[in-house]
């Protein structure tokens, strides 16, 4: 991905949408952009879903697999013109069984996964606790690696340069910088924007693939610089 790409709006990648449903663009579109399929999304209030999606109020993977299972039972195989879909997975789910997950995803015509929501949102001693219990960033990266070995494309969300580099080291090409749950304080949002710019700048020379930026709706102009520095955006559809 060249540096010039994001300087010209026409060169920017189309937005990668996170959707609760699986409706793709109408047949006839040229190479429709991929979408992230997160069927649990509409169960959460829009203002708090970045935060709550990583808390024990719903079964992220259960919702995904239920949606895929019921879809494969009740609908015909997806038409090839629909947008390719990336399954949003909670990779640190201790009960996630790779064999079952890959079989279900493949049978639903999905060949890409992403770590969304990501446990990287949790910081401080809580993050160290997750890591210590084998439910942290390391497990998340390992699960993504195993999906790659199973032939899945992987889009990796990273909340920091360090985590992004960890994903790059696994061979993940498509990265999304996640600024964290938005704060109600604009100063915190501005700080998050600056960090995102710094991360994108640091990773620019090292990332072989596109560098996207996740833009929760609460982020406004304080995110303009980060938006401009990214090759494309990820947002809720």
């Amino acid at each position: 991905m060249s540096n010039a790409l994001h300087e010209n709006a026409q060169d920017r990648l189309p937005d990668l949408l996170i959707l609760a449903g699986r409706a793709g663009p109408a047949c006839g579109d040229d190479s429709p952009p991929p979408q992230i399929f997160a069927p649990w999304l509409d169960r959460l209030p829009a203002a708090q879903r970045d935060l709550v999606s990583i808390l024990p109020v719903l079964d992220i993977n259960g919702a995904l697999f239920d949606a895929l299972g019921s879809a494969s039972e009740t609908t015909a195989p997806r038409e090839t013109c629909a947008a390719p879909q990336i399954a949003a997975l909670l990779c640190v789910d201790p009960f996630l069984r790779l064999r079952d997950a890959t079989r279900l995803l493949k049978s639903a015509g999905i060949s890409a996964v992403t770590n969304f929501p990501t446990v990287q949102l949790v910081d401080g001693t809580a993050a160290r606790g997750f890591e210590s219990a084998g439910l942290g960033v390391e497990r998340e990266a390992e699960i993504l690696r195993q999906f790659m070995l199973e032939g899945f494309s992987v889009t990796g969300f990273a909340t920091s340069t360090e985590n992004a580099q960890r994903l790059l080291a696994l061979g993940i090409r498509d990265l999304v910088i996640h600024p964290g749950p938005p704060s109600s304080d604009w100063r915190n949002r501005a700080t998050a924007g600056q960090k995102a710019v710094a991360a994108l700048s640091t990773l620019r020379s090292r990332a072989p693939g596109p560098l996207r930026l996740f833009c929760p709706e609460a982020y406004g102009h304080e995110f303009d610089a980060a938006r401009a520095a990214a090759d494309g955006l990820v947002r809720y559809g």
Partner: protein
Amino acid sequence: MAENATPRTGATAQAQPAALQELLRKRSPGNASLLVGGAIGVGMTAEAAVRGGADFLLALNAGRFRVMGAASLAALLPLNNSNQFTDTFARREILDRVDVPVLFGACCFDPATSPEQIVAQVCETGYQGITNFPSAIHFDGQFRHRLEEAGLGFAREARMLALAREAGLMTFGYAKTRAEIAQLIATKVDMICLNFGWNAGGVQAVAQSFTIAEAADRARRIFVQVRSKAPDMLCFVEGGPIISPDDMFRVCDEARADGYVGGSTLDRMPLEMSVTERTSAFKAFGLLKQANTVQSRELARTARIGGVVGQSEFVIAVLEQITRLAPSRIPVLICGEAGLGRTTLARALHPLSRREGPLLTLRAGSPGTHPEATLFGDGTRRQGYLARPGSTVVIENAETLPPELQRRLADWLEEDAQMSDDTPRSATGAATNARLILICTTGMDATNGLIPALTRRMQAGRVEIPPLRERPEDVPALARHRLAILGHGQQISADGYRLLLAYPWPGNIPELRAVIDRAALDAEHMTIGSAQISAAIGQRSAAEPDMSESTRQSVTERDWLLDALRKNRFRRGDTAAYLGISRKTLYNKMHRFGLLE
């Protein structure tokens, strides 16, 4: 700790739930035991915790995840709707199945469910109380800030607890920081639990922020603050480095806490350990059976003939020692307190050794006995025991033999050792290959009362029988054995076993037998419960005048132990090393003298 327990006022008792009043009563001055809460997630551990004496249960999603094989931390992940998940297993497996209060672990993170709705649902379902778990206290840093900003943090949990209190539920507030504690005090929760983070220990241990010393100090300072503002509030500790009763004792003692809440320490860690050990034992049994069939048969035969019952490592070691000694002519010295079956074991050596001569027993110290003449003859035609070919000579109370006779026995053994088995004996003018077995009663100072020369001569065949209090794991087997002899087909309840295991048995096996006999007689059903066991033990204690001596000794030993514990800041390992005894012995002694309470 009982003396220091905060007196609970009765001023607010009318407004308190009955279950809470019961807990307060248990912590009133005069009731020494700490309260123990079980943070569990499955019916089996709930019932087991209650049988073990848990005063209340917390139904938590973390407990469920643990028995599903995940770390407690999974409780914080979006694996399900925590409230629905917890309610489902609690309704099916715990509520109405235990006779202690059950508190619901309520999650306040879901913006779609208000605290009012949660409290209403908890009341309607029939829980006796509520707690804030999983909680915002488990998060910090930026994520915690976002939670609080979003109105989904600790303030929401405190509000839920306040609503629950108004609704008449028992309220149990988890907190980690002083600010959280202050909020809970303002909320006037009934019980406060200072959490030290996820538990260390076991296969799924989590890295720790606190040492035991730090945890104790932190709890002490915080509980002082709590009690200055809310003297009626029960204070608990949980998690972090507290992974054993020792740790709990140290933290609770130093912090003057009212109790402890165990989660991983009550289910994950003991389950990991016991399942692993039991499986390993079953697996090893098959292998050992192939390799050691002959040895196993010999041990079983020794146990049967020697009347040995038990399964502790001490019993196995004694059986192995006796089995090895049996075919030899090595003199044997059996030491131990009275009531441990020493004479039976000594007598068993005779058939086990397949000796052809007679089994001869001398009870030294009894009126009318003449030990020297009995053993060596009286110069007339009467032959001494030791001159009888192939005989086994058992001397009970050998420590009461006069020193000169002990010296003569030592000389006899010396001479005996210098002769080969086929050499005719000359010391008494008769050919002998007698075997000598001495039984000594070990004193509190662990000496056997024999002169050094005789002790040295007997050293190779010395067998120590530990008192029952040092091997409580043998108590259930002995109790079952006694019930089998009584032949009524009765069983002992888990509560009953708990009492049996907790009692120090100063009278050893005869006292245990008497208690079982009495309890079996009193039991109206086929199951002997804690009431019968307790009554039987009580009767024994009251009726045993010989307890006074041991009690008198105990006072001294208790002071000695307490002094050593204080000098070593109650560090169990250091104290044991300081006293020159094993940790297990120290624990048993502390238990015996009530120093664990």
